[in-house]
């Protein structure tokens, strides 16, 4: 589904990614771990097309197509979803209205009929219930006045609604207490399916107790320095990142 080859990227003239190689197939969950400043959030944002980063080399194929050629909104409509580390607040824009615009943009892109307000409300009520999201949250402005946990849950809710092919979670666990972590993980696990791939970017092993990855990659100074199975995460938990960086 996703083939990243020798990907290099910089921001404000500073080189951050120095040649990333990564292959993700449908049905897999990959965890990207690494110390602060290793470039793991940058990788997530570059894949989503954040304008702050400039790709200076390498290629990314998504379902055989050149992902880097696509605008961020086109990537999203094609099925790339990123759950933000810091979800953005949009004052005065109703959460449900925002979701409807997003979903219909995607449906339109794929030649499907756009949902009207009634169909849409029925759909989000059903999805909200499945994810334990209160109705009230849908009627508030996008992320405005949400607690940290609510914001992350809202991200997962959007993901559930938009049903991406590739979901990228950018440090979704940061700032979550254990209860919120469980709810978020439950949401992610519920979406696991043979035709969907997930990339989980995280600093801590903790999240991986709940979202069990198929592969773990360790990033250091803009490169993947070690890859392995889920046991690699446990090893990191015990030894810290030092032993890999030193190696």
């Amino acid at each position, binding site marked *: 589904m996703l083939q990243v080859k020798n990907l290099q990227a910089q921001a404000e003239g500073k080189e951050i990614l120095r040649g990333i190689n990564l292959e993700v197939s449908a049905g897999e969950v990959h965890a990207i771990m690494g110390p602060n400043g290793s470039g793991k959030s940058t990788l997530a944002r570059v894949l*989503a*097309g*954040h*304008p*702050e980063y400039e790709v200076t080399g390498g290629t990314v194929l998504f379902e055989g197509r050149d992902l880097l050629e696509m*605008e*961020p*909104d086109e*990537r*999203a*409509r094609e099925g790339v*979803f*990123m759950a*933000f580390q810091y*979800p*953005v607040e*949009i*004052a*005065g*824009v109703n959460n449900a*209205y*925002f979701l409807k*615009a*997003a979903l219909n*943009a*995607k449906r339109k*892109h794929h030649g499907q009929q756009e949902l009207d307000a009634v169909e849409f409300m029925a759909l989000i009520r059903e999805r909200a219930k499945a994810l334990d999201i209160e109705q009230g949250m849908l009627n508030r*402005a996008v992320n405005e006045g949400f607690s940290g946990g609510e914001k992350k849950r809202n991200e997962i809710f*959007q993901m559930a609604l*938009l049903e991406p092919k590739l979901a990228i979670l950018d440090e979704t666990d940061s700032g979550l207490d254990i209860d919120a972590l469980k709810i978020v993980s439950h949401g992610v696990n519920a979406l696991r399916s043979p035709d969907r791939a997930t990339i989980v970017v995280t600093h801590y092993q903790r999240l991986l107790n709940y979202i069990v990855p198929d592969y773990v990659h360790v990033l250091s100074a803009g490169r993947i320095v070690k890859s392995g199975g889920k046991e690699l995460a446990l090893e990191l938990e015990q030894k810290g990142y030092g032993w890999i960086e030193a190696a």
Partner: protein
Amino acid sequence: MSTSTETIEQLANREYKYGFFTDVESETIPKGLTEEVVRLISAKKEEPEWLLEWRLKAFRLWQTMKEPTWHNLRYEPIDYQDIAYYSAPKKKKVLNSLDEVDPEVKATFDKLGIPIEEQKMLSGVAVDAVFDSVSVATTFRERLAGVGIIFCSFSEAVREHPDLVKKYLGSVVPYTDNFFATLNSAVFSDGSFVYIPKGVRCPMELSTYFRINAKDTGQFERTLIIAEESSYVSYLEGCTAPMRDEHQLHAAVVELVALEDATIKYSTIQNWYPGDKNGKGGIYNFVTKRGVCAGNRSKITWTQVETGSAITWKYPSCILQGDHSIGEFYSVATTNNWQQADTGTKMIHMGKHTRSTIVSKGISAGQGQNTYRGLVRIGKNAAHARNYSQCDSMLIGDKCGAHTFPYLEIKNTSARVEHEASTSKIGEDQIFYCRQRGISTEDAVNMIVSGFCKEVFRELPMEFAVEAQKLLSVSLEGSVG
């Protein structure tokens, strides 16, 4: 950073779709302003002597006045002798019905989406259409007359209802008020007149649509609305003009009188030609709008969506005379490219337990400069007066500016006054967040801006809220991409 800023600027480069010119045979008097011109306008309208005298008093005073400079606006000096003060489409005879409106003029309003044939009208909206200096059509008059409502052009009101005009003309905005209001008093040519009798709730929205068409012409209209005791009226004005390289002056006066228990809602969607993206051309909009809540529990609400004009200078105000009277001001002002706006309100609390609310949303894009200027004055007898003001500014791009000048004068210690202000930048992060969900940049900007303006839009009559939202998205088109 660069991508969004560039695209933000692209969105600013929109086309003004009302910029066409109608080739209609007009009668325009030569440029220049003298006492003869004032007499000529009055004579053309076959006005009574008292009105001519009133105009002349204004004109003589105006000659001694200086253009104000306290505003936060920069523009080339206006040459008042280089403007024609009267222009009207020629007509063969007196109009007896709407069918006799010049087909070209009718076509113009059709093109603007303002059909002046009643069967085509939005249900529930009566329209007075003003083309350059004269009112060309007023719809639904008979139905309104059935409940005693007078809705007609100003000229007609002078002829048909001289006592009402004489009693209220200048009662809220005296001819001595300010440079532009005094100029208007001397040369005003037409406008709308509304009278709602005691106890009547106006059954439909009333609306005036102003169109400047002729070249080198100023538009100086006057609107007077009187709501008798316990009556209600909702009134909307809209305006457009052709694209021209020269600036054109628009100096209007609006006076509202709300008597005991009466409510007037006055909404404006101002979309005069804003000039091109280099700041060439555009309307200079210097307008004086004021209402008096003359009785107990009267209420006046001003709602404005200001997207047009090269220069906007207007402060729709409320004089809260009656006890428990209420004044409200809801405003969205956008300045894009080289547009400048200095706008706000004055809430003058005189009665006891008077309340006022001010919600101002300024949006600046391109090189636009947006100033909020508002005065809240609580007089010494205005016991228990309350005011709440909220001024929010949004910046799109990094070459525009937002400024806030709140003035408070409080002479009664029982007053409660709150002021909140904020400035935000339409963030690259917000736009990226929307795009990551599949929403295009343009839709994202519209969504973010509409969210920002929500508190104002919901005050507009429903028929126009959608139009206002569309207009706003057109006016910011090209400011992000």
